[in-house]
């Protein structure tokens, strides 16, 4: 039987009083009708589907040939139309503000002049990209493709954990998870009205088209730029290029001539107008950034500055999702929109402040410590599940470099019913909806739900044993 811990964690299926929450009623019925053997069979079918499609994920630090599947849970995660509308408004407000912030930071820096954000935090930040100063990207958009990580802690409380504004990944899982679910449990879709996610690639293509350089005449040529098959997200790069019907390029496929970008084809070189790059800033262009990079295209950034190509997302967007800048996002939203933020940040302690640092060091076993420049769950301490030795080590690191860490309370992430070894059990989840910014803002109803499969674990990262779930947004 499904048993939750109502006093500690909000469960999205079963309310604290033991009743099933309305959005989950059909799911609860369906789960009751399934034997464990049925579910196991469905899960096995799911694995077969993913393996055949070649959806794999390379784990950093392991052998190249060691591609593995991200575990997939067959029980969908469900949000009601009303819940989604709230999130949508908050997300839209946030991405507008962050794009305005990026434009400002690379131009007049009004927000610094106004004293809302410290100058040093920006100009001395390694994520700040001086090469972008004074550049006006097409339509003024810097971050076009965004994956905002949200967590839920109660019926009405959602927090933004991270704004991923550089090259967020995971959207292929959103689409393929749905594809798999449609094949696995068609009868469930008949009981619900689930908003489709399959239009994402089409929306992405339109978004990319809309930010072609102003000088581009006719239908812009768009490419996806990948670091290659050994990148952990290569499947996604290939998937998106295929879905959009555009070329998937590696650095060698592109070159710059007369200030324009071209691709090498079996015939004449073909001009490229928009590059959806999945290569990090540092490796994008050895002429401007790391000279030893062999993944990038020499002169690509120059062609961008000359206004002859659009790079998506713009280089230097990392300054707006830097973990130290994150704590200022509420002020950033107010400054540029004149509105109160609709989505809250997780309360964050500033270790550079002596008083807050003292509190942090005294309460490490309750807190989560994140390295300012770390990602993917590496360089992170989760207090409640940490050992004494780990805490001592992090205390030492915080004291040595307080600016390098942000500290947050351990959030009581909501749980969702998940099919595991022992049957159906609550597991912690987060949510990454995907946002597209071009001629308009497009938010796909859904997103990537990541689930911590280990009992009690709060770390949902796929590199740390997390899985995914299909996310259903119900229509009214």
């Amino acid at each position, binding site marked *: 039987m499904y048993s939750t811990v109502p006093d500690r964690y909000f469960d999205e299926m079963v309310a604290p009083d033991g009743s099933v929450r309305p959005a989950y009623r059909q799911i609860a019925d369906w789960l009751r009708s399934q034997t464990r053997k049925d579910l196991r069979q469905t899960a096995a079918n799911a694995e077969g589907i993913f393996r*055949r499609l070649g959806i794999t994920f390379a784990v950093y630090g392991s052998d190249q040939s060691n591609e593995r599947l991200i575990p997939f849970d067959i029980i969908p995660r469900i949000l009601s139309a009303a819940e989604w509308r709230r999130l949508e408004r908050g997300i839209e407000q946030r991405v507008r503000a962050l794009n305005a912030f990026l434009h400002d930071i690379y131009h007049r820096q009004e927000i610094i002049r106004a004293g809302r954000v410290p100058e040093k935090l920006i100009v001395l930040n390694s994520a700040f990209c001086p090469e972008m100063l004074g550049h006006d990207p097409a339509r003024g958009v810097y971050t076009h493709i965004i994956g905002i990580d949200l967590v839920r802690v109660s019926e009405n409380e959602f927090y933004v954990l991270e704004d991923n504004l550089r090259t967020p990944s995971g959207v292929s899982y959103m689409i393929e998870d749905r594809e798999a679910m449609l094949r696995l449990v068609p009868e469930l879709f008949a009981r619900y009205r689930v908003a489709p996610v399959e239009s994402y690639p089409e929306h992405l293509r339109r978004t990319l088209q809309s930010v072609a350089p102003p000088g581009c005449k006719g239908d812009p040529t768009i490419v996806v730029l990948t670091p290659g098959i050994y990148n952990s997200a290569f499947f996604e790069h*290939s998937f998106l290029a*295929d879905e959009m019907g555009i070329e*998937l*390029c590696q650095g060698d496929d592109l070159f710059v001539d007369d200030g324009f970008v071209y691709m*090498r*084809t*079996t015939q004449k070189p073909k001009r490229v107008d928009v590059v959806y790059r999945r290569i990090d800033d540092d490796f994008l262009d050895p002429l401007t950034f790391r000279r030893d990079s062999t993944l990038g295209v020499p002169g690509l950034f120059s062609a961008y500055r000359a206004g002859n190509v659009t790079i998506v997302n713009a280089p230097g967007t990392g300054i707006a999702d830097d973990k130290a800048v994150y704590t200022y996002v509420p002020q950033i939203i107010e400054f540029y929109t004149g509105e109160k933020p609709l989505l809250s940040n997780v309360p964050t302690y500033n270790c550079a402040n002596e008083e807050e640092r003292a509190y942090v060091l005294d309460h490490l076993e309750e807190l989560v410590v994140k390295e300012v420049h770390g990602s993917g769950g590496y360089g992170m301490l989760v207090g409640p599940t940490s050992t004494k030795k780990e805490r001592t080590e992090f205390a030492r690191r915080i004291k040595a470099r307080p600016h390098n860490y942000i500290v947050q309370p351990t959030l009581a992430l909501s749980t969702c019913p998940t099919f595991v070894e022992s049957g159906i059990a609550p597991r912690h989840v987060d949510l990454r909806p995907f946002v597209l910014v071009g001629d308009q803002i497009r938010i796909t109803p859904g997103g990537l739900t990541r689930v911590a499969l280990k009992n009690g674990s709060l770390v949902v990262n796929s590199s740390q044993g997390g899985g995914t779930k299909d996310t259903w947004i119900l229509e009214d």
Partner: protein
Amino acid sequence: MLGRTASSLYWICRYVERAENMARLFDVGHRMSLGPGQDGRHREHWDSTLQAAAMAEAFHRRHERAQPPQVRDFMLFDEANPSSVRNCLLAARSNARAVRTAITTEMWESINGTWLEFAAIRPSRVTYNDLPALLEWIKRNAAQFRGAMLNTILRDDGYAFCQLGTFNERADNTARILDVKYYVLLPRSDLVGSELDNDQWSMILRAASAHRSYRHVYRDRYRPWNIADFLILREEMPRSLAHCYAWMTRTLADLESFYGARYGCHDIGDSIYERLSRSDMDAIFQSGLHEFLTEFIAANNALGQAIAESYNFY
């Protein structure tokens, strides 16, 4: 189409073809070693097998003598041998992954499935008795991939690059098999009909998967003249040089009309095909079978390079 995509399509098919050829060559070597004979003769078989596979030199850099277990590991599983079946399948699969969007789901599932299954094999657990089934499996999967390709791929430039890769590799392989044993095909009176020659002839035909079809075409016992004719000049034999070049010139002509441009590779392809069409076995034996094959292998290589240059492979 990106030049790199064209290159990958060409190499996917070349590597699958090579994997199959390696399996077949090994199979023949293996079969010969099961027959009666002294150690010295068996070693000679393995040596010529390695030569036909164009890996004799690489093998002898690592091993002194051609012993069955070493040859098996080298030809099938060795990670350091670029033409081992393992590396051919891996290279085909890596290329397929890189151009996943340019191939059909069926092609991808075939090559991906083949690699995943092959990668799961522990070479140390493969016994002598497992070998026939394993070799069969490799040949079957290569055939399945080719079937998937032929049944599902659009007949556009991508298809052309696939076919060029296949036939470029196949022509090379057939020419090598013949060249390694060219001397047993020379018309000599002294040994004709001896058991030894029968053995060698059957090996050549088996290596080219031609021992059954030979009978259908010639309705005669093995004769060196016929065997050479069959594998060089008979267009209806799908592994013959003439067949490979009939396909390649046709495919190059398709590319020429598709892109509206003719390059160096077209001239090279046409001249090789013309030479094959003009030849008869008399002339070839007269000017020297070995010389003919050496020249052919070089010309076939030059064609591969010209294709890469003309269509911006890199």
